[in-house]
């Protein structure tokens, strides 16, 4: 299998994991997990220099899930990378589980920092990038934000500080799925024009189709060549991507599929994966 199909396959697997996990947990956030699946597949199975056998390896690239509610996706990426057995995914949100409702670095190997309170992850990412500069390390820091999340003031404090300190080792990805909990971002609290805002804050900005794996890979590569400023990749995505009845449906932000819905979703995803298998 070539690299692109390999990553498509991974993204598909992550989506299936998400559906299975949420159906077992009977709660959690499918919409924003599914919209970021292609991005996470590219990161965990291509881009990041990391070592699942040594999660605390000093020189590893860091990934921060600032939109922490999408952690089912992160857990799947970690499990499928080898940080812990995939069977453990079924314990999501259960008592005594290492897989909390939102990411907890004290509990889950491979999770870099506790997130879930929106707006905080990007500041931590800035701190990590700053540490990389102080120590003259080569690692890169990636942080995934939601498009509703950027309504938080802290995001812009962080944005200002990242360009002020010229953190070209920092790459943010914005999951621009156009929805938040209460509806379309444009109706709830319009953060547009998004690109112009980041540019005005001194960032290098790139737009991609967040489900187009070759494009995503290309952008990550290009971002590494930018010097003197951080990069944000505005990834245009579809919330709920890959499951027909979840796509662009506001309610599936934070509603788990029923057993039946999960069956249908899994059938659709498996059908989809046949496209590149033969």
């Amino acid at each position, binding site marked *: 299998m070539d690299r692109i199909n390999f990553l498509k396959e991974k993204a598909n697997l992550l989506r299936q994991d998400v559906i299975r996990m949420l159906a077992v947990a009977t709660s959690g956030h499918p919409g924003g997990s599914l919209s970021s699946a292609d991005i996470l597949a590219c990161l965990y199975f291509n881009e990041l220099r990391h070592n699942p056998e040594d999660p605390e390896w000093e020189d590893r690239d860091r990934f921060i899930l600032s939109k922490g509610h999408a952690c089912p996706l992160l857990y799947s990426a970690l499990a499928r990378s080898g940080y812990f057995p995939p069977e453990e995914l079924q314990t999501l949100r259960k008592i005594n589980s290492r897989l909390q409702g939102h990411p907890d*670095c004290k509990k889950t190997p491979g999770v870099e920092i506790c997130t879930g309170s929106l707006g905080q992850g990007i*500041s931590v990412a800035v701190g*990590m990038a*700053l*540490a990389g500069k102080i120590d003259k390390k080569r690692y890169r820091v990636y942080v995934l934000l939601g498009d509703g999340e950027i309504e938080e003031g*802290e995001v812009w404090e962080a944005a200002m*500080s990242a360009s002020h300190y010229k953190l070209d080792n920092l790459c943010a990805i914005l999951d621009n799925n156009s929805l938040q909990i209460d509806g379309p971002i444009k109706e709830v609290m319009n953060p547009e024009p998004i690109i112009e805002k980041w540019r005005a804050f001194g960032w290098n900005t790139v737009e991609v189709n967040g489900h187009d794996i070759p494009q995503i890979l290309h952008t990550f590569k290009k971002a590494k060549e930018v010097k003197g400023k951080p990069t944000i990749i505005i990834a245009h995505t579809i919330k709920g991507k890959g499951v027909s009845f979840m796509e662009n449906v506001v309610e599936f932000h934070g509603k788990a599929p029923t057993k039946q819905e999960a069956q249908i979703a899994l059938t659709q995803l498996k059908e989809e994966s046949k496209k590149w298998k033969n």
Partner: protein
Amino acid sequence: MEELVATRDAFGEILLKLGEENKNLVVLTADLAESTRVKKFAEKFPERFFNMGIAEQNMMGVAAGLARCGKTVIATTFAIFASGRAWEQVRYSISHSYLNVKIVATHGGISVGEDGSSHQGTEDISLMRTIPGMKVIVPADGVETKKAIQAAIKVKGPVYIRLGRAKTPVIFKEDYPFQIGRGYIIRKGKDVSIFTCGIMLSQALKAEEKLKEEGISAEVINISTLKPLDEKIIIESAHSTGAVVTAEEHQIIGGLGSAVAETLGENYPVPLERIGIKDKFGESGKPEELFEKYQLTANDIYKAAKKAIGRKDEKK
């Protein structure tokens, strides 16, 4: 004349020394480099100092990120902004991950003075004390400040250290054996226990003298670590005196008075009088004037001690 030193000045001094010894130390501020006394560190170690601008929430998050990459971080701003504006970042980004961030908050209490209520951190101890795993230290003078900062750097996890703006009396000698989590008996006594934190210790010592003139023997104990609290010293002292006064430059809700009440309520209830700001906002004025108006003086402690002693019979 007694020697006067602002605890924030002592902090600035020790920070320079620590910067020399500990190459891993990184200092952050939020446009308050001069006021928080980190400016000298900034000048000497520019590669390990970052001004984060007037953005306290981001500063706390950045501190967490630096710490997660192995740095020991000192994050400074005023007590109200460190504990209030950025409370949730301190709770979640820093404390939930149990990171090595030492929050050094100056301008604690009402002794901030003329700037008024907006700048007086009067709820910070309460806000920080409630965060799981957070250590909370309120040094009484310059000597203790230096020892507390050194100890905070060595200990694992998040620490909140509250310092003051005003020059205040130096009480301790260099040989004072500071330890995080340990109270310290300054005066032995048998009629009433006075527990204090921060600059209220000097007021308590004056009250103790006044009580002594009347033949009342007060035990004065410095509880500079509000968390983890030295419950043993509090219970033992209450046991031997049977009456307790707490004194702090903070709201009486949630601070030292509350901490002592929680401990005694569960372990050894005795009459308790709390000196502190009585559920009110501060205002502008000279620190001494504010102490008078908000009843935080030696005389207030003196009166509270007599009241507590008078209540000993209640129990019988």
